[in-house]
């Protein structure tokens, strides 16, 4: 219990990932859904860092850097789409986002 192993970090990562999944499933505000996706990417990064620590090899951290780069790109494009949609439809509720063109 007092010795922290990689399994502990994996449990933490899985819990954080599940909270993100619940956020994506339950919430209706698309900005909150994007933040839940960021939580899930963070859970993946914790897993990568934990295995990098266990295996004493930095390649896990290199991949975590790539995940952060992809998360930044995803946030920029996704928030641009949200802004463009909001200018046309005046809503951020995903239940009202049911058209592919307008």
């Amino acid at each position: 219990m007092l010795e922290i192993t990689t399994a502990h970090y994996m449990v933490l990562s899985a819990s954080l990932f599940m909270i993100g999944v619940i956020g994506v499933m339950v919430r209706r505000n698309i900005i909150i859904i994007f933040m839940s996706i960021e939580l899930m990417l963070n859970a993946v990064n914790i897993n990568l860092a934990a295995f990098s620590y266990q295996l004493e090899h930095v390649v896990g951290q290199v991949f975590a850097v790539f995940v952060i780069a992809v998360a930044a790109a995803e946030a920029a494009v996704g928030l641009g789409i949200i802004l463009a949609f909001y200018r046309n439809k005046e809503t951020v509720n995903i239940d009202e986002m049911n058209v592919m063109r307008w």
Partner: protein
Amino acid sequence: MGEAIAFYGLSAFILGFAILVVTTRNTVHSVLFLVANFMFVAMLYVLLSAEFLAVIQVLVYTGGIVVLYLFVVMLVNLKGSPEAHEDPRRLARTGLLLSGAVLAEFAAIIVYSAARPSSGATVSDAGLSDVGGNVEQVGWMLYTNYLIPFEVASILLLVAMVGAIVLAKREL
């Protein structure tokens, strides 16, 4: 023992703030809880001796991405969220309590380090020898074995930047 205390404390904060991000009604509060969550994840990276990742986490996530979220939340101007204004001072007591807890913590640290002045010196002596080793290793790996994925990631960021500008601009 110390690692266990740090891990369980950080885990409690990470999961607690994650739950608050998902459950809070006010979107601006949700973004601010996300900042706290990312800061505690950065501390967890330090615990895992991934210092470079911790710095990148603070710079890119809390400094860049979350500010972007905050901009969008302000721009879309959500009408509603009526529960945010009913009683502006309802959290004052909780805030006072938490500030008192932080003050007590600082006082405990000062008293503890004043009582044992020798312990601080040994820690800094041991820690200074391997500062920057992690950054050097990650940089070496990034620019030798993973050079092509690194360049692809930079092209991805360029494309995302152009795409975001095209999407967000009203008329080109």
